[in-house]
Each structure stands twice: as structure tokens, then as C-alpha cells.
């Protein structure tokens, strides 16, 4: 198996683990962790395609990853702020109990 295929397998696996985490966890923070795993799986893809692609001199993939890491960090900051906002009202962060809105 070529290194590119190994990288892609790893990233697909990470993406799936993240998605399962998002869908199965009840705590908002663990769901957030799942989302981060999924984002990082995409980052591994970019790095792998850049490194083993036809023109690694262009640097497109690595620049994309730098920006997307920054975006993921901003997303985590906003996410934790919202988790705290929910915590202030219901004194826990279990998503099963965040069910005021329905209809």
C-alpha cells in the first residue's frame, strides 16, 4: 500500500470515529471533541494530498491546513462559550436535558 493510501485510510477512520462520537455522546463537550476529530481528519487529507500530490512545491494544501486549524480554534472558542451559556441555565451540559425547544 502506498503512503497516500495509508494516510487516506487513517483520515477516513478518524472521520468515522469523530462522527460516531458526535452521534452517540450525550455531553456537549464530548460532541465538540468529535467535531474536532472530523475537522482534523480533513486536515490530514490536505497534508497527504499536498505531500504525495503532483506538485508539492505549490504549498496549497499546507496553507489550507494552517487556515483551517485557525478556524477550528475559533470554532472551539465559540463552542465552549455556548456550552457555558447552557451550563448557567441547566447546571449541567447533558444534551438530553437541553430540550426546551420542541414542537
Amino acid at each position: 500500500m502506498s503512503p497516500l493510501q495509508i494516510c487516506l485510510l487513517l483520515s477516513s477512520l478518524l472521520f468515522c470515529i469523530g462522527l460516531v462520537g458526535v452521534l452517540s455522546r450525550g455531553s456537549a463537550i464530548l460532541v465538540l471533541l468529535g467535531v474536532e476529530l472530523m475537522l482534523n481528519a480533513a486536515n490530514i487529507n490536505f497534508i497527504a494530498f499536498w505531500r504525495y500530490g503532483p506538485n508539492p512545491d505549490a504549498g496549497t494544501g499546507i496553507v489550507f491546513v494552517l487556515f483551517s486549524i485557525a478556524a477550528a480554534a475559533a470554532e472551539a472558542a465559540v463552542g465552549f462559550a455556548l456550552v457555558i451559556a447552557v451550563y448557567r441555565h441547566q447546571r449541567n451540559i447533558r444534551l438530553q436535558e437541553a430540550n426546551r425547544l420542541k414542537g
Partner: protein
Amino acid sequence: MSTPYGELLIALRPEICLVGGALAVLAVDLPKNSRSAQARLHLSVALGLLALATAYAWNLSAGVPGPLFGGVLTLDMLGQATRAGVLGLAVLTLGITAGTSRLRHPAELVAMILLATAGFTLMAVAQQLLLAFLALESASLSLYVLAGFDKTRPESAEAGLKYFLFGGVSAAFLLFGFSLIYGLTGSIELPVISAQLALTGPSPLLVVALVMILVGFGYKAAAAPFHLWAPDVYEGAPAPSAALIASASKLAGLALFVRLLWPGLGAASGNLSGAAGWLPVVAMISGASILLGNFAALAQRNVRRLLAYSAIAHAGALLLGVIAAGLIGPGALYYYALTYGLATVGAFGVIAVVERSGRCQDITDLAGLRARSPLLAGCLFVFVLSLAGIPPLAGFVGKFVVFTGALQMGGIASPAGWLAVLAIALSAVALYYYLVILKQALVVAPAKGAAPIKVPAPAALALLGAAALIVLFGVWPSLLLGLFQ
């Protein structure tokens, strides 16, 4: 080769202006001052309006059309018109905010609205996957904060968190799809991607990438089956935030979507009679949204949730516009999205004003609006009928141009034609739930002890402006459609 930074600076003046405006609003409000919350709100909104107006003026003189800065962004009619539309919708949102908001941090609210708008305007001109992703993220992050802005109400925090979690997952799907596209074509610029895809043809990996991108955008457009966040967010978020999420965000998202799909991934579109590609998937999402949105809206008692399900149904029609854009260009889609945004901002504006003097969640809370405030009832009449698509209002023309575009694609006996017929048939169903709102507002007597509602001047101006624009675009559609001829 020298990098044309000067050109970039000129093209991005609207965004610079919006971000500068947001910082100025925060800076003016920063020193400890003794002004009342009301005065601070009005000052912030005035500064915000100034920033939006300057951005609008600079957008009109944005320089030569065409790709800029090595093709990172492009100034074309779709981009310029979407920028203008987004700025206009943000002005209306600020007008509603000035009239109705009692939130504790007015400057931060206005600054977040401006930052979200900067994200939308960038989405409108992005022609490269990196810029598209960053613009989408910066707009979305501001919207998550806006949805959870009312810290005193648990519903608002919950709406913000739900919006964030759905949004985060869809952003991850989108990024993964983008990474596969990059791997397949070796580029992140739409014109190069398009040329490469035409060369290499379809592959299994491309199908995975397309599905992931469609999941990301389906969420953004609140299309079924990725719509679950919409009713909760529309119900829990403060009314001005909900207005922005429902209008400007949709317009910018669809502009980006149609640019990505047709000029970028057009070679992988497949066709509606069975060839693999994104067209059949978009058609399925569109049909599901039209069906689910219209039928679920019938069961709603909460007026905000009703608007959310109507938004899902409209998302289906808008996706039909995306399909038709390959044949008739993005003009019809733009017209539909903008006029839909105007009507939704207006409807949420009316809800915001009613909320000042009590609850406005159930449809029955609107009872007797005609007696309590003729102005609000009149504006609501225009907005709701435009959403329902009654001539001569803009909603009718929007539906007309999108559906005729879809019918042109292969006549009535083709998948696009069936979708158009389905959408037209379900418009009749939609008329029922829209008339339920109007019946409460115009026919039913007010509840005992319901006082007349005083409409604050900025909100009245914004509502009248939105209603006037809907009528104007309805009787003179070539004002907008002519731009794309």
C-alpha cells in the same frame, strides 16, 4: 510576478469597512459611560448603519469585473448583487434591532451583526475553496453567537448550542469534501477544478466528495433532511438574530452554492435522468424539503416554528432554482432568495415589535393585531402574502421565474418538471398555513386586556421599507432580473 495587493484592497473595501465598523462600534462603547442602554443601542446602530452604507457605496464602485488576486475572488454580477442584497438585509435587521432590542450588550450585538455581514459579502465573491470555507466559517461563527445572544433566556442558549453543534458537523463534512476535491484535481481554484474534472471524468471518490459537500450546504440552506436545527433556532434565538439567520445567511449561502456547483463542479453534475453526479442528489433534497416543509408547517402552533418549516419549504424551491441555474443563469435564484429574505426579515420584525409588549410565540399571540396596531398588521399582510406567492408581490414573481426555469429544462415530463409541478401543487397547501397567520392577525378579535402596540420609529421604517421593496420588486421585477440579462 508581483502580487497585486492594491487591486485586492480596492475589491475588499466593503469588507474592510464592515470589520472597521464593528471595531468602531465596540471601541465607542468601551469606555465606562453613564449613557442609558437605549442611548448606547441607538449610537451603536447609527455607527453600524454608517458602516453598511459606506460598504454599499464602495460595492457599487468595486472596480473592474473579473477574477482578482490570482482568481481567489471574482467580481461578477452575481457577487456584486449578492453583496448589495446582503448589505440591504443587514440594514433592515439593524433597523429592527434599534426598535426592539432590550438585550444587555447592544454594542456587541451590532458588532456581531456587522461581522456576520462581512462573512456573507466574502461568501458572495469567493471563487476558491479556501476563501469560501473561511468566509462561511466566519459568518457561521458570528451567527452562532447571535443565536445564543440573549443570556437571560435558557431557550436562546439552547438554540445557540444546537445551531453550533449542527453547524460544526456540517463544516467538518464540507471541509472533508473540499479536501477530496483538492486531492482529485490538485487545485482549490474553481476554474482549474472545473477543467480538471472535465478531463478526468467521474470516479467513486468524486461521488463521496460531492455527497459531503452537499451535506454541508444542505445544512446551510436548512434543506431536508438536514433541517433539524432550523425550527429550534428560529424559536429560541432573539428575533433580530433569527431574521439575519433566515434571510442574509440564506442569500449568501445560495450564491456561494450556485457558484461552487455550476462553474466549479459543473463537469460532475450528471443529469436528472440517471447519470451519477450532484444534480440528482440536489433534486432529491429539493423534493424532500418541499414535501416535509409544507406538511410539517401545517401542524405548527408556534408562529416562529411555522416560519421555520416554511423556510424549509422555500429552501426546496431555492434548490430547484440552483438546478435551473445551469440553464437560465443565477438571476432567478437571486431574485427568489432576495425577495424571500425581505419577507422573512419583515415577518420576524413584526414578531420582534409584538414581543416588546408581551409574548409572541404562539400564532394566537398575534390575535387582533389589526386593532392593536394597523401598521404592523398591514406590513404582516404584505410579508405573509409574499411568502405565499400571491401576485403582484415579489414572492409570486420569484416562484414564477424559478418554476418556469425548471420547466424549460426538459418540459413537464422530466424530473425537473415533476419537481416544479410538486412545488406548485404544494404552494396551495402552503397558502393554508399562511392564511392561518393572517386570520389571527386580521380577523380574530384581540385577547382581553391586550393593549395597543406602539411601533418604535426605526422598526416602523425598516418594516415599511421591506414592504415597499416587496411591492416594488413585485410590480417591476426587471429591476433585479434585468441585472442578469
